[in-house]
């Protein structure tokens, strides 16, 4: 390659401000093999990344390679911003079919799955041992709820006490993260969002959502979640779990477990041993929410070949071994990381979760839908916190959210046929 400037935007991992440094280190191999390429890395925070990326694409000045959330692919494809992935970029298959579906539109592959994740229950192993609870005991809603009741009996509520923790950390903030954490519970109850986005169906007020609201209502009650706890910020909730031992369970993602397994130094830093468990099965089984991110090259990039060469490097064994070790992000492809049988067996529950996970529909208006659903779900949870009945007030709220969502969906007059 001749001398050129290549811009890469990625989002921060749990490494926070070190993300850029670690990425630069992991990209040494690429720099060595492409001495003429001047690689600039920008770490764009998740919370502003979507707007920043669209702004850059709309201005026609995007970076050459972008990390994007899998749920953003539908919009980026619809707006025609992405270059098609050349055949030579990916050598090995993805871990699960949904990872391919997330980047494929009308038979055209527009992104390369990079890291995969799935939601689940992160549990304090010491507490599971103390309560004699096995993974099977919490495999169903009933079993999980019964254990939560036992934990709640001895929980301290006047202060954070890691020896007498609350059952489960749940936040009810009006943000998409509330939807991300709780969608699995609604799905496990039989709710199927993808079937309901036709602009006229009931969505949150659909009868299939009711079992999910019931279990969430039970969880909020057994936890005796109050307004302060409901309003807690997700990062603080995570901190309360990992640093303070405030809860036995956290609904979230698995990176800390991966990192603990791969990096014993980090593992020692954990104040309590933690383990990953699938979301307990409801009437429709156990459903994990799949997610992660993909690498894409904008069509407006001036150097698509060099950009795709960088993408190929970023999914290579050489890069991913170092990246996963440092960040806890799991590779989305079968690769050297997963070839290690010992590691594969240790991560088996997580891998099974990823393989069977469900994703959000790839709707071009997803960001707006997600924002409304997050807010609507939050309103419903707050009404439950306020002691309102699921039959009355919750249904009213759900219908009102549905009216907003359907009005929004009807505005998609330029969408044509949406996959």
């Amino acid at each position, binding site marked *: 390659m001749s001398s050129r400037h290549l811009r890469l935007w990625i989002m*921060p991992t749990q490494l926070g401000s070190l993300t850029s440094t670690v990425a630069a280190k992991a990209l040494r191999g690429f720099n060595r093999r492409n001495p003429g390429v001047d690689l600039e890395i920008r770490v764009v925070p998740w919370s502003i990344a979507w707007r920043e990326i669209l702004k850059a694409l709309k201005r026609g000045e995007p970076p050459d390679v972008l990390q994007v959330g899998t749920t953003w692919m539908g919009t980026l494809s619809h707006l025609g911003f992405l270059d098609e992935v050349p055949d030579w970029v990916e050598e090995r298959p993805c871990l699960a079919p949904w990872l391919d579906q997330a980047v494929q539109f009308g038979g055209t592959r527009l992104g390369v799955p990079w890291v995969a994740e799935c939601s689940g229950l992160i549990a304090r192993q010491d507490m599971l041992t103390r309560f004699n609870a096995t993974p099977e005991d919490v495999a169903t809603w009933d079993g999980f709820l019964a254990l939560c009741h036992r934990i709640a009996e001895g929980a301290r509520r006047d202060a954070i006490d890691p020896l007498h923790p609350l059952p489960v950390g749940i936040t009810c903030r009006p943000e998409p993260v509330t939807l991300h954490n709780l969608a699995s519970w609604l799905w496990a109850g039989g709710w199927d969002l993808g079937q309901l986005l036709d602009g006229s169906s009931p969505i949150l007020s659909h009868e299939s959502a009711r079992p999910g609201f019931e279990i969430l209502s039970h969880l909020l009650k057994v936890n005796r979640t109050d307004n302060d706890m409901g309003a807690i910020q997700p990062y603080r909730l995570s901190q309360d779990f990992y640093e303070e031992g405030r809860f036995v369970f956290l609904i979230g993602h698995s990176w800390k477990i991966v990192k603990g397994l791969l990096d014993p130094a980090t593992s020692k830093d954990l104040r309590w041993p933690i383990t990953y468990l699938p979301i307990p099965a409801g009437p429709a089984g156990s459903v994990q929410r799949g997610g992660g991110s993909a690498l894409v090259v904008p069509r407006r990039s001036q150097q698509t070949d060099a950009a795709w060469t960088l993408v190929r490097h970023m999914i290579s064994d050489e890069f991913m071994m170092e990246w996963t070790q440092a960040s806890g992000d799991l590779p989305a492809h079968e690769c050297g990381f997963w070839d290690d049988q010992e590691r594969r067996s240790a991560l088996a529950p997580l891998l099974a979760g990823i393989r069977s996970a469900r994703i959000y529909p790839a709707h071009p208006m997803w*960001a707006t839908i997600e924002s409304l659903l997050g807010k609507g779900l939050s309103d419903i949870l707050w009404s439950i916190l306020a002691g309102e009945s699921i039959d009355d007030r919750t249904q009213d709220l759900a219908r009102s959210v549905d009216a907003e969502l359907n009005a929004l969906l009807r505005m998609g007059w330029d969408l044509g046929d949406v996959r």
Partner: protein
Amino acid sequence: MKRLAEVDLGRVGTMAALRLCTPDTSYRIFQVAGLEIHKGMAGAVEQVRIYLKNSEGVLCEEALVDRQGGMEGSDIIPLYQLAPELVKSHQVWQHGLGNQYEVLVPLVSQGELVGLVALVSFQSFPDEVLELLPQFAQGLVVGVVLVLRSREAERSESLLRAATTTARALQSASGAETLLGNFAVMAVEEMGFDRATFLVLGDDGKNVRKAICARAGSGLVELTTVPDFPDLDTPAKDHLPGLWIPMRVGARLLGALFVDNLYSVEPLPEDAVQVLSDLSGQAALALENSRLIDRLREAALRDDLTGLYRPNYFNERASEELANCLRRGDSTGLLMLDLDRFKEINDTWGHPVGDQVLIRVAERMRTCLRVGDIACRKGGDEFIILVPGLNAERGRRLAERLLEDVWNNPVELSGGRAIRISLSVGVALFPDHGDNWMDFWQHADDALYQAKTAGRSRYALWGEEVSLVSHSPVQG
């Protein structure tokens, strides 16, 4: 932490402010300022986070700087989540954060909260430090205000550029369609909206005549699914990520423009909406003028009585069509029509009834013809039709259809009477029956004459026998 009480915190704030005095207004300068604060506070704090209040009144983190380095901020704090003492009285606020302590230092300019600095430490901040922190804030706020003003100026300048470009595009547009298309595209490309949709009302001011949409990443499309025209008197719903801008001339509503950020979920910038709103008045006027010109032009081209084209325009279009046919090797057809016994109708029923007959014939012709066919009233009761792509077989069928259709749709008169109308039609094909306009015309005229003289209600294709259409030419 005790040492922090000995540090000149006012100077630390000023030094950090100096780092903000650069032409760059991005988050990067806040990383640099954060590092300066770290250095100035002599390692007493673990983390420095700098927030600025945005136009929606929300505090957005610009940078997070810790012992390991700095990164772009990602946190967002709505004001209602902060202690009222901080928001209203602008007091420094300390609170516990797990095993750490966080001090929130309000940045205030002219009595208004413009930002916030969060300092995180493993030790509690003693009162003597808390008392010094307003000095630190006073130093820092100078730089913060400068950045805010620079960003505002950048945005205004960019908006002004966009408004100028859009206004020019409106002025240079020729025709209503181009004008609306330009306006929608400008709203997306220059103003930065995700989509701009135009609903244009028809002359009745109620039904949507046309719907076009421009969206980020792709050009202009005409919508096949036409959205309902909004009730512009009802306030827009808050949850919808867009806004309708009416297009009026005086009290008359011509249409509406909908701009939205449906995909990016970006709040609609009020100033850009205002600019579009102002420009929409200009666009509405231009649209009205353009429509008026279109109408005048159309009126000049059409026969007053029947609404069919006048001969001048017909001849112009016909010579264009013939030139195209010669270039592409296509065929075209010419039909000449003459009403049978029209003089009798005029003499018997009077000229007003004769006019009704002509109107009815023109109306039936329009029903039988395709969009690209050109029909003209040549004069009196004579009509000509140019039919691109016509061959002999289709020519016969069309002539038969015209004769049948006109016959089957009589003009109703008072007292339950009706006048049935019969025609004679001559058909010629180009280039088979003449490869120049004169011959082509003459042969169609000859065929008409042949049909007419053979007994009326007949048609003839030039060079063939006359055909009779089986109904009798009676007046009822």
